[in-house]
């Protein structure tokens, strides 16, 4: 079940074409199986990525976002070959991602953690010594404040990030990506440790982003959350694509169910 099948709802227009990628760690094939992983993510799709622990979901994200180099295969994003592109280059191309364990910049405040996500002209060495970046700064700050409002952290903006809970840090990570208005957003377990009310807000936010045209790929263990909002599901197990299809199909698929149940017996 590794043939390329365009994921996404209406269009065959693939934003992300992953062809035969694989990754080995210390002798273990974490992702890819024999022929590597091949899958397409359609433009404007809302894709959920599920699978038992150790299935390779985070590894896949690491390969897609450029944190780790793939052992084989190619990745084409928006028509451009980004297989050898670095993590920051991919971010510039429009790929955003959040991390399974929330990552923060501890010496910056909550607001600054979001502002820093954007690429300000003042980050160029030459402009840093000038004054022109100040014009953009105000706009960035306003935008950051809006986003903080969207993720429910508006009243925490001046606080140090060390004061935030795990769930709040996760939302902050999302906010930091949103300020870049990425074309493709990869979210790694966004609801883990997040309060149920906040989860509803997150679901609303994701649906909103999706209807605004953003392509989303969400890794989740919280199937209740994910199957309600995602339009297409990819099931990963032991580094391979086991099944894909609309949530309804996946819910009832016996192979998927046994893959999850098999988690209890897994080595």
């Amino acid at each position, binding site marked *: 079940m590794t043939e390329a099948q365009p994921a996404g709802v209406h269009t065959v227009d693939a934003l992300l074409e992953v062809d035969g990628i694989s990754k080995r760690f210390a002798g273990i094939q974490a992702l890819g199986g024999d022929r590597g992983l091949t899958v397409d993510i359609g433009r404007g799709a809302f894709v959920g990525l599920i699978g038992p622990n150790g299935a390779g979901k985070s590894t896949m994200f690491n390969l897609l*976002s*450029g*944190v780790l180099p793939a052992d084989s295969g190619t990745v084409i994003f928006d028509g451009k070959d980004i297989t050898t592109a*670095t*993590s*920051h280059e991919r*971010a*510039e191309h429009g790929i*955003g*991602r959040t*991390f399974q364990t929330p*990552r*923060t*910049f*501890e*010496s*910056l405040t909550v607001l*600054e953690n979001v*502002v*820093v*996500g*954007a*690429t*300000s*002209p*003042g*980050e*160029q*060495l030459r*402009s*840093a*010594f000038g004054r022109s*970046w100040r014009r953009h*700064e105000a706009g960035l700050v306003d935008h950051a404040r809006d986003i903080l409002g969207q993720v429910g952290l508006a009243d925490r903006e001046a606080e*140090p990030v060390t004061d935030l809970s795990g769930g709040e840090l996760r939302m902050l*990570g999302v906010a*930091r*990506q949103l300020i*870049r208005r990425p074309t493709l957003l990869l979210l790694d377990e966004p609801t883990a440790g997040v309060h149920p009310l906040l989860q509803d807000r997150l679901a609303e936010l994701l649906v909103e982003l999706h209807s605004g045209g953003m392509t989303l790929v969400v890794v989740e263990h919280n199937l209740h959350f994910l199957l309600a909002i995602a339009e297409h599901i990819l099931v990963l197990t032991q580094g391979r694509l086991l099944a894909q299809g609309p949530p309804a199909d996946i819910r009832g698929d016996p192979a998927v169910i046994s893959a999850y149940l098999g988690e209890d017996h897994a080595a």
Partner: protein
Amino acid sequence: MNWPQLLITVATIGSIFGVVTLALNLQYARGGMINFGIVAYFAVGAYTYAIFTQPSPKGLDQYAFGLDWPWWAGVLAAGTAALAFAALTGWPTLRLRGEYLALTTFAFAEVFHSFLLNERRIGNGTVGLSNVERPFGDWGPIEEKYVFAAVAALLLLATLLAFRQLLASPYGRALDAIRDDEVAAESSGKPAANMRRQVFLISAVPVGLAGAVYAMFTTLAQPSLFTAEVTFIVWIALVLGGERSVYGAMLGAFGLVFFEEVVRAWPFETVRSAQIAASVEHIFTGLLFIAVLRFQPFDRIQRRMKART
């Protein structure tokens, strides 16, 4: 104990070392790079200035180059040479991290020191270059030593303003992000390796300029002035000043230089007791360094101040 003279010397030398400490502060506290070879960039600046401004060799001189150009050309050359040396040594080493970067920068500095000692045609060996141009002289009623102190202080001020400007900008914010979590910073589009290299290069320039001023002041460019001890002294100044703050870095430099100059200038009765005093000063400074590293009093003070507001 000539206090006025001492204070002028401290003002001058302190400013010069303050510049180097600021550069180290930028590299370590903001850039996350451990540079154990910073004396080399200082030496490059000093020697370049000397070579550019000294007259051609004659008589017993073993060195081969003396351009006899005006002092400002020497200063410009010093800054440029330091930049070039940083580019040369940075290119292979900045890929390394933490202790391995510390080692290679240390190694490069020792190689350079060895080079200065052995290549008599460049540096005149252990004797060094002593015809260094001392440009200022007395300016009207102001004695030369005050002029020097002012020049050094100006360099320090200029460096401080430039770095502060840089760090207060989005560039500085991006640097902080990279230092805090490089993976996350890269996923927000910050090119970590590039920015680190830029920081390394920019911070080398003031160090080279400080080297030139140092050579002017001492009228000497001698290998014995540029040993690993200088690197350690700057590191101690950095740590004693609280590692992170730029003002702390400067305070640390002045404090340390003051301490050293007092011990050096104190009228001891015997040569031996003066030597012992200098050693005791080293011991004391070293212990303070270790203690500050361990107990991190500045972090605690900062935290307590933040908690109060």
